[in-house]
């Protein structure tokens, strides 16, 4: 039964899976396309992925995820795979991923084992891709992926997307906020950026709409917090670091960036340097347990 289909790389590993699985009585064996048991079941009513052709396979697929009873190793594997892909795709947009979205679009009937699925997915993300699944803030039930690999300048040459030229602007703003004591007024931000040729009302060659970038996009991505200052006239806002910034970088890293830009040493700013050191010490302390939800 374990015939090798023509030159498909999957073939040898399929037979391995059959061996490993053991108790799974799936008689479709290696020949059956994995796709026929595609895990799209739980994408249910919301999903726009159902195509006219695929609907005929919907019935077969529905059998792959019963709502009760034991699931086979393969079904679990498929479900974790789906979850990993979902998290990767969602994180690309840099919008934090809500637990409710995960449950709705991916987990579905497997809700009862959601913590285990998430843990497995998190392990795979770390081992295979080098991404850590992290809860944005404790009990927020939203997640982001943090890169455990350090970005390197030369990465930019081999990337496929434009990377994010906006990262430069973000770094400048993060630097500004930190150097000014962790909070800064919006008016001060523009005063500084104007000197670099970046204006809130003028389209920028690289950054497009800087005002939207800073006050909306970076905020949505949770790199910045943007709050109105009460009792100001005209209305003014203040910026602080958002939770994602704290997770993805550190005060020391940002200080080093600022120092580099000025061609100086981080220690030339003793107050900030001390603060950055204290932050490093805090980070070195063991963290509370990972992304598995407590409720």
């Amino acid at each position, binding site marked *: 039964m374990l015939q090798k289909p023509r030159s498909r790389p*999957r073939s040898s590993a399929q037979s391995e899976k059959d061996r490993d699985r053991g108790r799974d009585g799936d008689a479709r064996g290696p020949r059956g396309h994995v796709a026929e048991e595609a895990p799209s079941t739980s994408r249910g009513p919301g999903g726009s992925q159902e195509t006219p*052709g*695929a609907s005929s396979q919907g019935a077969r697929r529905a059998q792959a995820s019963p709502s009760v009873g034991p699931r086979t190793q393969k079904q679990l594997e498929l479900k974790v795979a*789906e979850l990993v*892909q979902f998290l990767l795709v969602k994180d690309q947009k840099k919008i934090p991923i809500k637990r409710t979205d995960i449950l709705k679009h991916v987990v579905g009937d497997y809700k009862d084992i959601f913590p285990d699925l998430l843990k497995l997915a998190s392990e795979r993300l770390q081992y*295979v891709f080098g991404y850590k699944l992290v809860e944005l803030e404790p009990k927020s039930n939203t997640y982001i992926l943090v890169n455990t690999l350090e970005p390197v300048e030369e*990465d930019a040459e081999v990337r496929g*997307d434009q990377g994010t030229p906006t990262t430069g602007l973000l770094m400048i703003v993060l630097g500004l906020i930190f150097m000014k004591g962790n909070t800064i007024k919006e008016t001060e931000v523009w005063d500084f950026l104007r000197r670099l040729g970046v204006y809130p009302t003028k389209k920028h060659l690289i950054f497009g709409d800087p005002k939207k970038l800073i006050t909306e996009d970076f905020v949505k991505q949770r790199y910045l917090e943007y709050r109105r200052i009460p009792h100001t006239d005209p209305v003014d806002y203040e910026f602080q670091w958002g939770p994602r910034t704290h997770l993805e970088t550190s005060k020391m890293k940002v200080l080093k960036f600022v120092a580099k830009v000025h061609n100086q040493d981080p220690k030339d700013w003793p107050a900030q340097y001390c603060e950055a050191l204290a932050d490093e010490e805090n980070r070195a302390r063991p963290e509370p347990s990972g992304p598995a939800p407590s409720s």
Partner: protein
Amino acid sequence: MQSSTRKMGIMTDVHRRFLQLLMTHGVLEEWEIKRLQKHCYRVHDRNATVEKLEDFINNINSVLESLYIEIKKGFTEDDGRPIYALVNLATTSISKMATDFAENELDLFRKALELIIDSETGFASSTNILNLVDQLKGKKMRKKEAEQVLQKFVQNKWLIEKEGEFTLHTRAILEMEQYIRETYPDAVKICNICHSLLIQGQSCETCGIKMHLPCVAKYFQSNSEPRCPHCNDYWPHDIPEVFNPEKEREAGTSKSNKKSLRSRQH
């Protein structure tokens, strides 16, 4: 450090960085992927010998397998360049596009796909695609908007445009071959040589079998009297050249400059 009977490969930071950066591309040419591989070694393991690309990729694929994704190798249909894409094995629908496009946009793609598959040449004209705009699911789309959506497909490497006509980008073929074969089993064309999905190619005018241009090139290489492998009749078309990466680099020709071997309509 690899065991001889590897069931599943080992991931190191070299492989992880490779995967991360690979994911930023929809599809990569062979020289690009080799450069990427070298970059990752340089960052993490400067002194190691760069593993042969095929082994390197097989190693990663053995790990990716349990996640139902794979780095798949294919060839461009027009000039046979090897290309690579990270492909989703677990779903048959066009789900990878689903996150970037709205329902009506996806349906436009589906319509274009159907026209392409049904066509003789593997190309669907812009006019024909746009005429289907009224039949789209989801929010109503005007023709002007549809033109822009088609351009979005081209930018994202799902479609290729040539002189106002659209065909599938190799990326789409790699990603969706399975889906296409299962969804359109009657309309689908298969290459007589490599048995893969065929969108563009040459046909035998006697018996109708089809072959990819690069497959034609390889099969009839240095054959002064090319004959159909199926019915033995004289093969009436120009035999293209086999893709030679060395020549390519020397000439410095970009893909867009390459003369299309498809016979032109005007």
